[in-house]
């Protein structure tokens, strides 16, 4: 099994499954911090999916999208944490 096949048939479905589980936590999450962490995990998973797809399809331009997503999802989590700290 070649690397692109491995990525498209095994790695991406596993990441999709993880994203579904994180989404369940996002919907059910008993407290607000649980939901924030689930949202951060979804951002990280999206980053991993973009990176894997860039490798599978040999498109290095897509990696820039992953970098921007990494920087901005970090910023989003920081802003949520600040909001939580102010509220409590």
């Amino acid at each position, binding site marked *: 099994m070649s690397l692109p096949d491995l990525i498209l048939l095994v790695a991406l479905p596993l990441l999709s499954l993880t994203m579904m589980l994180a989404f369940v936590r996002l919907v059910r999450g008993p407290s607000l911090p649980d939901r924030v962490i689930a949202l951060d995990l979804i951002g990280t998973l999206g980053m991993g999916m973009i990176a894997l797809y860039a490798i599978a399809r040999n498109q290095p*331009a897509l990696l820039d999208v992953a970098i921007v997503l990494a*920087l*901005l999802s970090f*910023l989003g989590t*920081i802003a949520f944490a*600040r909001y939580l700290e102010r509220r409590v």
Partner: protein
Amino acid sequence: MFSIILSTAVRYLFPLMLLFSVFLLLRGHNDAGGGFVGGLVAAAAFALYAIAYGVPAARRTLGVDSRVLISLGLLVAVGSGLWPVFSGQPFLTGVWAKPTLPVLGKVGTPLLFDVGVYLAVVGVMMTIILTLAEE
């Protein structure tokens, strides 16, 4: 609400984000990227700085009033459009310099237009973010 972990992380993340935004800006005219995305990343860097060190510190680091940046960016963009008009070509025609610079590659009015967009986007985003953060 000063956090030592966040301020240490921002100290190395802030120059990295600014560098990446300039990289996106310079590559924009012949690859993925451009002035708009670069401006957004730069504005995100300043927003992170404002969260870590407070809004007054972010204003001091920005140096100029963010509204000055908007008008400066619009002026640069219109100027890049007017450049070919003086040599008898239509408005906004792309004029490229003959020699290519070692790092930048091809240099011309489209790059100047992108710089204008970059400045305008940074100005607009900083005006919005800093005003909201001061509330």
